[in-house]
């Protein structure tokens, strides 16, 4: 137990929590927007890979870091557009299309990587985002390192969560999006385009997922590996459920998962890590997530029209 306490007292632990949570926040917000409009986007895992790859390769090719994030965003939106076209106007199975997009996006990243860097054995490094120095706050003892040693992209992620919440609950656009996920007939009857709303949500959401992926290559690490997304997309889908489709609770879920993850890495270094195989520690965040999911999502109100295609004029 003293080990646990020691870990929680380390400033670097809390810094790691925020760092690990950042890509999850972007991608979770992206998935949440899609699902709130009524579309399950299982392309998330592949779209994160594409985001990680395109952002990194753009910077490697000479672009600045923020333009690189922009490239990742656009690449994600392109795959989002494909997903949206197949699932919304064509009304195809969202499961099949989503998994297809994941396979396609992952394979496209792999193919483009080989085309761009045919001779390379280990992927080249780029100069990633540096921690943003906030005058005053970053210089605080302990707290400065724990909370204020993050890159600008992390802060953007937190800002994004607030923005998504504001748009969903405070603006006409958000109301229309939520209604499209609850009862598309109601949206159509009020003269709005369900197709437009849903496609827009999937495209925008996919862009955010790609930025989440780009965080991995451009802020967390400084290079691109194929395994680096490593199931984070699927975790984000669970986080949306955990958050009961609400941005605030989903943000909390992302931080919680990141906390478990940061904890297990450090637990491996303790005496307990000498006895227990490290794979057990790797499982911990997932086991705890499942537990939290069971406890938290029992009373969640799932968008009533999630995964229900909408066809106007059908009888």
């Amino acid at each position, binding site marked *: 137990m003293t080990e646990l306490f020691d870990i929680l007292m380390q400033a670097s632990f809390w810094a790691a929590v925020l760092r690990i949570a950042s890509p999850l926040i972007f991608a979770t917000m992206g998935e949440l927007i899609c699902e709130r409009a009524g579309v399950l986007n299982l392309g998330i895992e592949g779209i994160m890979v594409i985001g990680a790859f395109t952002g990194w390769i753009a910077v490697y090719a000479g672009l600045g870091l923020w333009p690189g994030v922009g490239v990742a965003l656009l690449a994600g939106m392109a795959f989002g557009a494909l997903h949206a076209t197949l699932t919304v106007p064509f009304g195809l199975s969202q499961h099949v299309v989503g998994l297809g997009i994941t396979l396609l996006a992952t394979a496209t990243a792999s193919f483009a990587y080989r085309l761009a860097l045919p001779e390379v054995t280990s992927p080249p490094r780029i100069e990633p985002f540096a921690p943003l120095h906030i005058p005053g706050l970053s210089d605080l003892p302990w707290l400065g390192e724990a909370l204020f040693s993050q890159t600008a992209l992390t802060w953007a992620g937190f800002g994004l969560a607030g923005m998504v919440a504001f748009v969903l609950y*405070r*603006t*006409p*656009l958000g*109301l*229309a999006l*939520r*209604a499209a996920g*609850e*009862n598309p*007939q*109601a*949206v*159509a*009857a*009020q*003269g*709005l385009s369900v197709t437009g709303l849903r496609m827009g949500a999937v495209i925008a959401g996919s862009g955010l997922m790609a930025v989440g992926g780009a965080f991995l290559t451009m802020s967390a690490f400084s290079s691109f590996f194929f395994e680096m997304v490593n199931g984070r997309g699927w975790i984000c889908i669970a986080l949306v459920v955990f958050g009961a489709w609400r941005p605030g609770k989903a943000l909390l879920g992302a931080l919680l998962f990141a906390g478990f993850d940061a904890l297990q890495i450090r637990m491996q270094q303790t005496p307990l890590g000498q006895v227990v195989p490290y794979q057990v520690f790797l499982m911990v965040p997932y086991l705890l997530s499942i537990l939290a999911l069971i406890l938290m999502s029992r009373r969640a*109100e799932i*968008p*009533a029209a999630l995964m229900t295609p909408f066809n*106007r*004029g059908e*009888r």
Partner: protein
Amino acid sequence: MTQDHGAQDIVLRLTNITKRFGALLANDGISLALRRGEVVALLGENGAGKTTLMNILFGHYTADEGEVEVFGQKLPPGLPGAALRAGVGMVHQHFTLADNLTVLDNILLGTEPLWRLSLGRGAARRRVARLSQEFGLAVDPDARVGALSVGERQRVEILKALYREARILILDEPTAVLTPQESEALFDTLRRMVAQGLSVIFISHKLHEVMAASQRVLVLRHGRLAGEVATADTSREALAEMMVGAEITPPAPSPARPGAVRLRLAGVVTPPQGTRPGLRGIDLDLRAGQILGLAGVSGNGQGALADLLSGLEAPQAGRMELDGVPVRQWSPRAALAAGIGRIPEDRHRTGTIADFSLTENAVLETYARPPVARRGLMDWRAARRAAQDLIEAYDIRCPGPEARIRLLSGGNMQKLILGRVLEAGPVVILANQPVRGLDIGAVTYVQDRLIAARDAGAAVLLISEDLDEVLTLSDVVRVICDGRLSPEFPRGSKTPAELGQWMAGAGVDHAA
């Protein structure tokens, strides 16, 4: 006001509207005009093309031919937004509300430009309150729509249209889900609207409501305009004839000769399921040779009672007796074995399997027994013969026993289910909404057959939300409200208004 103003008073004009769905001609060259400050009833049987016509007007469908003019401006086809902006509001038969959103959010949806940074809920709440007051549409703007009664939801739909400053309101079968009292309140709202110069098109197939609420009636038959009359110059009988194209004789059952109690429920309780109430301690006797009609507003326990009799649910408490013998094991199979014939509420989802053939659907309840099954194998020749017999005996119009049941009209599908039930020689018949959505021809057929089954000694439980139907067919009427039953009322002992009181919950608490 002089006659010369007539042409200017026209707020809506449909010209020569034609719409096809595949081979079906749903609307055939229909023209109509609506004036300022009047209620026009659009009358017709199910499938006559009423809803299609209104969906074209509202832009949900595009017409193959013809045009729509609102306040002298031609409407672009296929754009509900354009119809809304022109001042047309529509209250659909199936409400278009999002259950998880509040009343206010449902009303606000789509009324502000999407990219505005604020919803303006405060001002909207005040306007909704004013409209509620003005038109007699009481509803709490902050309630979740999912928690509202059907009548309240309808008020939200009307408020939605009024909030958008609709000048023309289309109501599609608005009273189908209301108690007589709620319908009265709705008609009162309509009168207030007309008094303020709004115009209303009221779609219905209930003659007495058309007579009560409209100034002018347009009758549709098989997609064509079959007649147009001032309400004051016509009668229910004349309208019915215009609707069907022939004189009709409603079934007039002979007095019943009730026999022994075949099925008895005593203090039966079933648990609620989600928003559906369970049964809260009901006593019910179904006697041989008698039709017991169960009236009530939808969602008051009819579903639970039907599931109980079908064997889909077992009593949680209380006794259930068949011919005086207490029932122990209760399941769909046990219900079938006990001789309970089941005409389910939803003929598409629970009554048939849409992509199975008539033959397969005909033997759904007997497939495991001879002659259809022999030594564990299906005898398809016997099954086909059974289906062929049903087709002939019940006048099922179909391409043949191998046709998929999906291709049949509702009436023919219902005849197959009816035949399947009656040919088994049932002791008890559960008829849950047996004629909903059928045209008058099929309605009369089904009702006559049920009366014949009664006369042959079956105990019939008729569940219907249509009070007229209950009153026409039933020897005894009971009302269900919130999972409890009223006492038995013999035929003719209660007026529709008195039953409406029971349907609204007055007095039921003391019964059972």
